């Protein structure tokens, strides 16, 4: 298996035949019938049993939506138990046996990719896994959706190859494409790239320009890495504050010789050994 697998979607070539969707369902053993949509669900067509879908935009534009397999995935960084993992090869995969169902990954994904099995008591997170296991075992040489595409609108290779291919297509027909590769830099880069003749900002909750190129996990890590210092700092501050106040009150008590703090003494005297 190639390292750093990557999919390049060419929006100009997609005819919206949904062969990729059917192939995805077949290879992953997903039922043909999707669960009915829930109230307030976004209308992108993805569901727990449909890991890739075709967004049909006005003007005959078809855009395939699927997991972007970010280089630094937000979903992996927020999972408190590490049920979602970025494999050494690249795809982001899910381990049901570890998951506790907090759905933080669904909140953290800027593209709204992870979907949930709402209608069962033993639900899983479901999303595209880039056919990881079958690729790894060598059963198939490229993801099922890529194999199924009749128009080469979606092609597969290593990330460098795909970036080169994208640039080649952009240069070959500069009039056709917008000169931008979606997924090259957004949120630290993704392993599913898009080239297109229309703006693809709608693939994310917010325009990728808004998200920036800084990986999302860095936003939380910058706060989380301070945690040990905060803990030690707060404990020290509180102990010091207590010590100073206690000493002052004791001195005052000796001066006034009428301390009414007997109530507090047991806790106070024990502490010097306790907190240091």
């Amino acid at each position, binding site marked *: 298996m190639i390292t750093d697998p990557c999919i390049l979607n060419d929006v100009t070539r997609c005819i919206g035949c949904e062969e990729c969707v059917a192939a995805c369902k077949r290879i992953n053993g997903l039922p043909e019938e999707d*669960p*009915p949509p829930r109230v307030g669900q976004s209308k992108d067509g993805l569901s727990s049993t449909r890991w890739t879908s075709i967004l*049909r935009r*006005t003007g005959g534009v078809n855009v395939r939506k699927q997991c972007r397999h970010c280089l630094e995935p937000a979903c992996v960084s927020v999972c408190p138990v590490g049920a979602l993992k970025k494999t050494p090869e690249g795809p982001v995969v899910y381990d049901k046996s570890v998951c506790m169902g907090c759905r933080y990954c669904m*909140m953290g994904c800027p593209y709204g990719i992870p979907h*949930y099995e709402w209608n*069962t008591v033993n639900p899983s997170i479901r999303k595209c896994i880039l056919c990881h296991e079958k690729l790894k075992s060598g059963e198939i040489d490229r993801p099922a959706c890529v194999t199924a595409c009749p128009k080469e609108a979606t092609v597969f290779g290593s990330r460098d190859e795909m970036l080169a291919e994208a640039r080649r297509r952009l240069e070959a027909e500069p009039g056709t494409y917008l000169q931008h590769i979606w997924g090259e830099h957004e949120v630290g880069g993704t392993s599913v790239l898009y080239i297109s003749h229309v703006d693809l900002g709608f693939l994310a909750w917010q325009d990728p320009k808004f998200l920036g190129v800084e990986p999302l996990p860095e936003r939380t890590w910058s706060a989380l890495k301070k945690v040990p210092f905060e803990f030690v700092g707060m404990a020290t501050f509180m102990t010091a504050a207590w010590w100073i106040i206690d000493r002052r009150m004791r001195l005052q008590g000796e001066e006034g010789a009428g301390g*009414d703090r007997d109530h507090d003494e047991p806790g106070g005297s024990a502490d010097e050994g*306790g907190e240091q």
Partner: protein
Amino acid sequence: MTRRVQITKGILWFISGLAAAVTIVRFTRGLGTTTALSDTTPWGLWVGFDVMGGVALAAGGFVIGAIAHVFQRERYHHAVRPAILTALLGYAAVAVGLIYDLGLPWNIWHPLIFWNPHSPLFEVAWCVMTYLGILFLEFLPVFLERTRFQALYRTLLRLQLPLIILGISVSTLHQSSLGTLLLIMPFRLHPLWYTPHLPELFFVSAICLGLVMVIFESSVTAWLYEREPHTDMLAGLSRFAAGALAFYLAFRFFDLWHHGKLGLAFENTFEVRLFWFEIAISAVIPLVLFLIPRVRRSHTGVFIAAALGVMGFLLNRIDASGLAQVWATGADYFPEWTEFVVSFGIVSFFALIYLFIQEHFPVEKEIVDEEERWLQRQLFVLPRFDRGSQVWLGDATFASRRVYSALFVVALVVGLALTPWQPLVKASPVQRARGGEMLRVGYPLGTVMFPHGEHITRLGKEACGTCHHLHKPGDVGTPCSECHADLYLDTTIFDHVRHVAVLEGNASCAKCHPEGQPKVRATARKCSSCHEKDMMAANTVATRFESLAAPGLRRAAHGICIECHRREAANPEWKKPDLFRCATCHKTPVPHVQELRLLRAEGGETAPVAAGS
């Protein structure tokens, strides 16, 4: 026990009963049945109120601990035990709330062994578990004080200060980490709430909420047990609260100004109105009230200010974890009533535990002593008997417990009767279309443009039965939408009431239900035995007509159309091998209703979205 306590307990038991009913459905049918959550809104009321709000509400424990033990303000020692009890029960309630909200609650212990230190939630989980343990040790002396385990009691008292300092440090971490939780979603959270300083902001607001919660709770307990609240303690706490609220306001607006977002606060959107409402009831109004000396001295005034503050900061947590994200997702999530019942049910249940502990252990000595005196007085009350049956009516405690049990059971039954057992899904009604050249089907309207006229020309008039497998009595060519009335959901098409009416009343049961057999669907005569002429014999679907529910139009149409298209695609004569593929019917462009509206508003051009770099 006062009348107020009894009525309050009755209400709390009733809500707990309702919640118990929903609990049964939640754990046998899953989240989809009891919540309005969706893939677009995966966190709802249970996270916003029970977890985010619960943790913040319990902040009183560490704030009062700091004031009374670390800064050694004697006056607030009364408040320590109730505050720690609230914190302990608050965190326990958070854990219970999590069990409801987690999809796989039996894995709730997984953060213990599966580590991901990069996740804020992992940090929160560890802190909450640790702090729950610390709080238990902090509160244990109250249980032991009037028992014979005096040695252990004294040891724990000596450990009180280290425990409290440890508790403060752990609280600092997870109160702020709840803010860190939202740092990952700049794309969901509205800029008025999102800031890189969310952790600090959450910590400050937790201190505010902790203070107003202690004030609120002391006022309520005093009112319930009909005794005088500690006026100067409340006045002192109010002064602290005023300071904290002022700092919070200054911090929040400085942060907005610093990031150049102050202008956003003066637009006219839902979020801006929400923002000002939240700021007003959480901080501004309580701050103003607390600053007036006369209000600080009045029980009602302090209570109102504190109650507003509690609601305001709870709203802040709910906004941050849900309401202020609608802006990005466009989801119209509103909690199901079952979600409210569970949230309030958990609060009610833990409020009952709180009252129980107050009445049986020396949390506030006046209450437990009064309770003991009341129980002793009961020994001198003559037993009461029913005049007719001479059955003992029980003492007052027994009688009130009987009422509570009755209320709980009634609520449980009512809840079970009302709670839906099927997943909550959106009804997507199918637009009625009849005859004509082109039928627009699907939801949103027009997902598929069905060339009805072309099909008639191609297949011939006599072939109607190929698709129309069933007519309503007295009708021909009954449209699909008549039975397949929803795009996804099954529709019941059998109308029992109508059958009874048409077949001349109750005497006609035997026309469908054979004598001597139970009158159920399974034993009733087949519909086809009467409705033979309404079914198109040519159609295979008609023979499958046994269920009294019509499947959703999506399934039905896919079943009929694709079957036929596949057959015709295999026919080499037509040279249309792709006839069965999705795009044959699902042609582009498929105008979504929303986009159509937008386009119409803009002047109706289908130009592609403007270019971006």
